[in-house]
């Protein structure tokens, strides 16, 4: 008889069940799991079998396809499979390039065009650390003074939310910027966590102390992002492969999509890149993780050399869909 403990320890993911689940996650969510992922999947999904009172992973596969609450279960499964630990100011060298080179570049270009709107998308934002890091860097750059409402911030003690606290003259609203940082993730739980903006010590391993003091405040659950930073960030749940759903925020100037494409198979990766390309404004840039590249995926982007890094830029002349992507089918 199969041994089954309270934590479901006795249920093993058989090779044929692994293949079934692997193919299902690839077709529905574009996730790519190599043979080495079998035991990680077994470990992460085992609790779901216990909760759903299922006997084995074959039953779970069936439940995901035909179960009465399959849609909710997909949320649970994706939460468990895609949630990865992250932290503020990850990949410092790239962030330095973003803050010191890209932000001034966009600032100058936009001023020249008379446009004071900066949109940044953190695609695959997990629990929000990346999006808030970007917001802190934009804030710290001193270049973009965001427009804010004064309605709720006119109390007796001035706060960071007032324009003057950013160093911008409150009497010149035309100098203010529309800054939006969108964070998206396929995991419902991650998006909810990002919205809360409360983090434990583990998220601060690379955060300078002065920034932690100025951009976070101690709270019950750890440290919470301060309101001026939170106000710049908007979070939503979306699948990067679902092009229709990614249109909900128009076009972006900068897209961070770091350590996301590594989970995708070739076909899904091409689809995702096509979506990212489509969502960028001409001249906008795409920042990938340090181990990722567009080699053999797309030639539509042009390379932009920063002092310490390389990023991908959508040509300023680009119009319409990505012309250099092969048909993924």
């Amino acid at each position, binding site marked *: 008889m199969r041994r089954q403990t309270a934590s479901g320890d006795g249920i093993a993911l058989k090779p044929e069940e692994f293949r079934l689940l692997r193919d299902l996650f690839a077709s529905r969510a574009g996730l790519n799991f190599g043979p080495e992922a079998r035991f990680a999947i077994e470990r992460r999904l085992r609790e779901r079998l216990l909760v759903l009172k299922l006997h084995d992973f074959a039953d779970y596969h069936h439940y995901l396809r035909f179960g009465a609450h399959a849609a909710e279960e997909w949320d649970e499964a994706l939460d468990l499979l895609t949630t990865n630990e992250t932290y503020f100011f990850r990949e410092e060298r790239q962030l330095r390039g973003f803050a010191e080179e890209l932000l001034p570049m966009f600032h100058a270009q936009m001023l020249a065009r008379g446009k004071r709107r900066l949109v940044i998308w953190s695609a695959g934002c997990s629990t929000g650390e990346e999006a808030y890091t970007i917001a802190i860097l934009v804030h710290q750059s001193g270049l973009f003074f965001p427009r804010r*409402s004064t309605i709720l911030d006119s109390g007796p003690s001035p706060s960071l939310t007032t324009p003057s606290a950013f160093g911008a003259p409150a009497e010149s609203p035309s100098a203010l910027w529309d800054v939006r940082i969108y964070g998206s993730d396929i995991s419902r739980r991650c998006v*909810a966590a990002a919205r*809360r903006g409360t983090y434990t010590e583990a998220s601060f391993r690379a955060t300078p102390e002065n920034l932690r003091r100025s951009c976070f405040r101690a709270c019950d659950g750890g440290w919470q992002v301060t309101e001026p930073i939170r106000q710049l*960030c908007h*979070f*939503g749940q*979306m699948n990067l492969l679902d092009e229709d*759903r990614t249109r909900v*925020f128009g076009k972006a100037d900068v897209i961070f999509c770091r350590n996301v494409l590594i989970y995708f198979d070739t076909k899904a990766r091409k689809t995702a890149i096509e979506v990212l390309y489509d969502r960028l404004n001409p001249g906008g840039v795409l920042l990938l993780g340090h181990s990722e590249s567009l080699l053999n995926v797309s030639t539509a982007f042009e390379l932009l050399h920063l002092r310490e890094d390389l990023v991908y830029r959508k040509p300023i002349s680009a119009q319409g869909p990505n012309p250099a992507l092969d048909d993924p089918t």
Partner: protein
Amino acid sequence: MSDAASAVRWLLDQTEPEARRVAVQQIAKVHGSEGPELLLRALGDEDWRVRKEGTVVAPTLDRREEVVAALVAALEETYNIGLRNAAVEALIAVGPDAVGATIETLPRLDSDARKLAIEVLGGIPDTRATTALARALADEDPNVRGTAAESLGGAARAGEESREVAIQALIAALATTDVFLKIAALESLARLEAGLPWAVFEPFAADPLLRRYAIAAAAGSREPEAVAALARATGDPSPTIAREALVALGDTAFECEIGHPLLECARDALLDTASARENARRAAAGGDDTRARAGALLALGLLRSVDDVASIVDALGDDDVAERAELALRLFGPAAVTPLLSVARDSKAPVRAAALSLVASLEGAGVAEVRQALRDALKADSVDVVASGVESLGQLGDAADLRRVASLVWHTDERVAATATNAVAELGARHVTAARALLHESRPGQDPVVLACILLGAIASTQPLLDDDIRVLERALAHDDPQVRRAAIDALAQAESDAAAEAVTFALSDEEHEVKLAAVRALGRLGRPEPLVDLLADARDADLAATTLRALADASPKIALEAARPLVTQPDAAIACAAVAAIGQLQLDAVALVPPGHGSSVSPAASLLPSPLSSAREDVLFSALGHPDLAVVKLALSVLGQKPGPRALARLGLCLDHAEWEVRRAAAELLGQAKTPTEQGLLRARFERERDPTVREAIAAAVSVRPSADGARSSAFAESMRAAPLGAIAGNAGSASSPSKAGGGGGKVGE
């Protein structure tokens, strides 16, 4: 003898009743002349369970004419009473096919058997049966006459035409000298809700034997004389008659608007009747007779004595009569306010809460007195009372009340908090200056964004929002409480600006379902169809698809129709139902094709879809008729049947030959409403071939029902489909329909 018949015969010989009952079930498999004979044997069995099984099997047998003939003959049985009674039940189960033979045999039957035949005819909703019953009112046997009169009380089941026939026959029967026939006729007229002039009943009101029935029958009359007679009868020395009158008067008063002349007429008669008040007070004091108490409360309301306010207020706490008690207090008008508040102050919390709501809605009440009572209620210990006070202050409060109510938005009791939210919205919309002032107030320890969303929503309902306001709402969209995000979306929905639309569009990606749905609805209101169409591209959630289609209909009916087209044939029945329902909601007399808020050079006449359904919409619904799931087919039928044009009627006619009995029945009911010769011909032709009793009944009703002027008597199917929430329909989608309901041939239509 066939093998099947032999087996049944052998089983029917067994001593064990259960074996014989099982044998009866097998009679349906016996083909040929032995079937009726075996059925009669079953119906004559000594065990009631065997006989009951026989009545169930009877309508399923072949050779229906022979079966009916055998059953009709059994009515003459004098020895085996069980067989005779079972034959009555079996004939009723056979339905309209049994009517002709039963009528034909009437003249040959003795009085006992005639009475049974009359019971058969009374059990089958059929116009021919009603006519025969009407004739039987003149039968020489008093039992037959009485049974016929009683049976006519149910004639409305066979349609309006039958009802009219029954009413006329029963009125004529009132001229008889047969007292029992008169009683039966009066009772049946009451059941038929004949609504006849008081003059018809007045002669019987003086008769001690008939008075009670005359009073009950007069209940449906709206004539002043009838109402006055009812009011006077409430003081009758006979408790039975007084009770009957109180009930009837209460029903009449309940249907009248306040200020209706009939109410004053009733009041005058009550004041003139010595024991009326005393009887009403006794009945209103309580007891098990809820109907009498309800009527008595209204009688006291008509009498308007301040002494009775306490007992009426007390009834507010009784769910069975609370509605009548409320109306009774409304009949007092403003005069009730002071005594009502005085009594309510010391009452139990639910009664006090109900009294406050009532006082606040009384026309002509002194606003200052009521407001003060409502403000006092905010300090009560009971959350019921607080919620009631808050709710009413939302309607009656002034600018100063806005701050009072706003402080309750964060109340720990969810109901109070929700009521306060609504009240703030109402007050804020009426007192915009006060609302704006409140926006700038800080409240230590309380999240200002919550109140800001409510206030800005209120302001937005009366005037355009400022850029600053929009930014506050955008900020609220990032809030970690989904309720706040929903409130922000609701406010942004009224903003009619690109910035608002952009913010709401991003909320389509919200991780909370309710917030996402709010964003969908808001985009509909904002007239932004594009993101909604994107949302339907890969619809997997029926709830979301339904809401999106409804919102699209708000934004652009034309685009909604195009978006729904591919969804009606989706294998997922819940999504297909959502799409069909959305198309149903597009079916208005005239639907604007241009999104709200979008200018157009299209003339007003050209921008409207014609009624009945445009061809495009009909085509989409026709394709839904081919869906493998019956829930989708039935929903599509109901939409097509609402205002069918010639093409839709033709398609409904095809559905009379559908393989599934439910579809055939629905088609029959819907075609029955058309009342054109072509459709009537189709129905009659199908009636000849139809074997399913349910469908036959529906067809019989369809060809006999006369359309009423106000359309109040529409088909049960149409009513049920209209009343059923989408969730219920979608929830049934995929469930198996009655598999044994075989009937006419024909495959699916619409394919």
